[in-house]
């Protein structure tokens, strides 16, 4: 596995961080061989912010970057100049371009992307049939895996475009807020194998044979299955599905093939995965699942970013701060605020200890995985300046 950006055994001086390899973000962003960075992780851990901050830092160090976001928070989107969900990369303003870099950003329009795939791969007549089919309309706008599938489709398109016109040399992708972080790896295959699978061929049989003739042509098994499905699903739905499938007939190989291509792209050394987490048990467990899964799929992990970590300065432990506060309460203090300030510090130190404990357990269970921490910010991040600060923290 590629862990080129790892600095073995480094820790920051004076920090209480557990020993383990540090994720060197600047080395990752500076590597011209890396052309795709995929940010993944469970919901609410700051994936989009991390993707945007990585993109900005790369752009300001000279890379020509496009950031593909899936579902950004409104104000973050506005700060990136993303006012419309229109599938078009647009330049982000307020970027320092003195190093020769640039930054574009775009928001995924899942239905538009799906429509484009159909238009590209079917004859105009067939495409029209597909696009107006009620079942297609439902699948393309609401199938639980469509967003994941289309995010990967869009990634493939951007990669092809960057190879053709050299407008970008780095693509940073944010992944959809899935049920599980693993969904976006599974969904494309699931849709691909469904569209190429046995069930489709069974559904196709009647359409190909024409009308009800399938009852004679099909085997007993298939006709029983069709009877059952008609009872359960209702005849109308089944007919829509059949029409949809018949119209898609010409593109079948295409779906599986494209899913396979994207998969190969994700395994390539030009790709780096950054797994994003927050310092709590559930998010780190999800991160560990993801790290394992990437290894199984032979996909290159750069490392893990832990956001929102409580950090404390100074060498005063929780216990000593509480003892000092109690001593001040018992005696006569010059300022009544002193004891409360110490108690605040004790509270922050407790959270910091818990966060470092969770990270240390992750480290122990995942030795050799490079990791970087971003301190918790008092305010939400929704401007370029805020992203720049996050980028600096990411780089350590």
């Amino acid at each position, binding site marked *: 596995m590629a862990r080129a950006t790892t600095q073995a055994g480094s820790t920051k001086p004076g920090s209480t961080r557990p020993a383990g390899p540090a994720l060197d973000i600047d080395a990752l962003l500076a590597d011209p061989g890396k052309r795709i960075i995929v940010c993944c992780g*469970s*919901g*609410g*851990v700051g994936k989009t912010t991390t993707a945007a901050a990585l993109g900005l830092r790369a752009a300001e160090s000279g890379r020509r970057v496009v950031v593909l976001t899936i*579902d950004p*928070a*409104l104000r973050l989107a506005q700060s990136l100049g993303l006012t419309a969900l229109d599938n078009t990369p647009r330049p982000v303003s307020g970027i320092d371009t003195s190093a020769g870099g640039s930054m574009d950003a775009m928001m995924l329009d899942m239905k538009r992307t799906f429509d484009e795939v159909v238009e590209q791969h079917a004859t105009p007549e067939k495409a029209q049939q597909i696009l107006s089919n*009620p079942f297609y309309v*439902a699948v393309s706008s*609401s199938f*639980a*895996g469509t967003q994941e599938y289309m995010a990967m489709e869009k990634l493939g398109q951007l990669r092809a475009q960057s190879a053709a016109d050299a407008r970008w040399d780095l693509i940073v992708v944010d992944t959809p*807020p899935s*049920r*599980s972080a693993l969904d976006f790896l599974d969904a494309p295959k699931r*849709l691909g194998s*469904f569209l190429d*699978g*046995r*069930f489709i061929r*069974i559904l196709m049989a009647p359409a190909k044979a024409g009308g009800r003739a399938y009852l004679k042509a099909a085997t007993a098994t298939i006709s*029983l*299955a069709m009877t*059952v499905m008609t*009872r*359960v*699903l*209702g005849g*109308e*739905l089944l007919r*829509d599905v059949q029409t949809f499938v018949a119209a898609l007939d010409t593109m079948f190989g295409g779906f599986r093939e494209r899913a396979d291509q994207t998969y190969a792209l994700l395994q390539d050394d030009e790709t780096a995965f950054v797994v994003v987490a*927050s310092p709590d*048990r559930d998010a780190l*467990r999800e991160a560990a699942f993801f790290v394992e899964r990437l290894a199984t799929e032979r996909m290159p992990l750069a490392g893990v970013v832990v956001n929102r970590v409580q950090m*404390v*300065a*100074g060498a*005063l432990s929780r216990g*000593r701060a509480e*003892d000092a*506060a109690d*001593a*001040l309460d018992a*005696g006569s*203090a*010059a*300022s009544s*605020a*002193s*004891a409360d*300030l*110490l*108690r605040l*510090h004790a*509270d922050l130190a407790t*959270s910091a200890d818990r966060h470092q404990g969770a990270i240390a357990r992750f480290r122990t269970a995942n030795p050799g995985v490079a990791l970087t921490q971003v301190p918790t910010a*008092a*305010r*939400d991040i*929704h401007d370029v300046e805020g992203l720049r600060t996050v980028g600096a923290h990411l780089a350590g």
Partner: protein
Amino acid sequence: MDPTLSPVADTGPTYGFGVSDFPGAQGVRLHIVTGKGGTGKTTVAAALGIALAGQGRKVLLAEVEDRQGISQTFDVPPLSHTETLIFDDPSGGSLWGMAVEPKSALLEYLHKFYKLGRAGSLLEKIGAIDFATTIAPGLRDVLLIGKVYEAVGRREGRGRHGKTPTYDAVVLDAPPTGRVARFLGVNEEVAEVARMGPIKGQADSITAMLKSRITAVHIVTLLEEMPVQECLDAVHDLTANGLPVGAIIVNQVRDPILEDKDLEALSGGASARLRADVAADLAGAGVPDPKGMTDVLLDEAAAHLERLDLQGEQDQRIQEQGRAVFYLPALADGLEAGGIRVLADELHVQGMV
């Protein structure tokens, strides 16, 4: 359709409720808990389940996203589609857990309504089950929530009083706010693909229950901008879809720690006098490097004040909704060491349960 499922009335704004004031405390049997990812909705759903079980009720806690959040929260073996006892409460109540699984739900449904033993496995073999549970839009959600619908409506016993509901309450750890309106809007979703037929009928019954007064959708948030925005969006979307919004539960609220007099002293930056006094106090209490530590403490206090300000702004936005709001404390030690019981007690003390 169950005749007791009358549409929910608009209860209007509520402030300062006691145990019986909270709208929905009376008669709600299905508590749906949602929230932005990372706000702790699974934890809150579990705390709500514990609080209800602590009142002598038989409670089912259900999850639908295949994440095994319940088993991790209670540190019990992974849950399956089968309802499993998590604990018996001394009050006579009990908490049961279930991880609803779409494939099992579909096979169960086919068996129950169509007596399809062999045909079920046939459908599985040709990939139709996979199609229904993963590809076909909306069907997956109908199946997941259909199982919850079945558990809420299930009745048993042949006593003098006839059959009684199996569960006094069902708590659903629902998908996050971004997907919840679609998840609960099974009717609209299904209408896209099935305009009539048995699936449409099932979706209609489920929708009737979800829109009735036995259901309440609670939204978990943090006092941060994005979670609050998603919370307000969810209130709007759910209301627009005729779904009964219950309480807003604010999670991980930080204890102010600093008292008003401290805030006054600190506002607008610490004075040289305060700085000197604190340094002297730290030195007196034996803290090493008192000057350096004073800088650290005052920086921490400034960041803390900023965070309290932000919390205040966000709390204001939530209060403006005029809905029942409950506050759960940030636990410095996390959920270990019985933290979830602390949250359950809070929900009881504040009158949600």
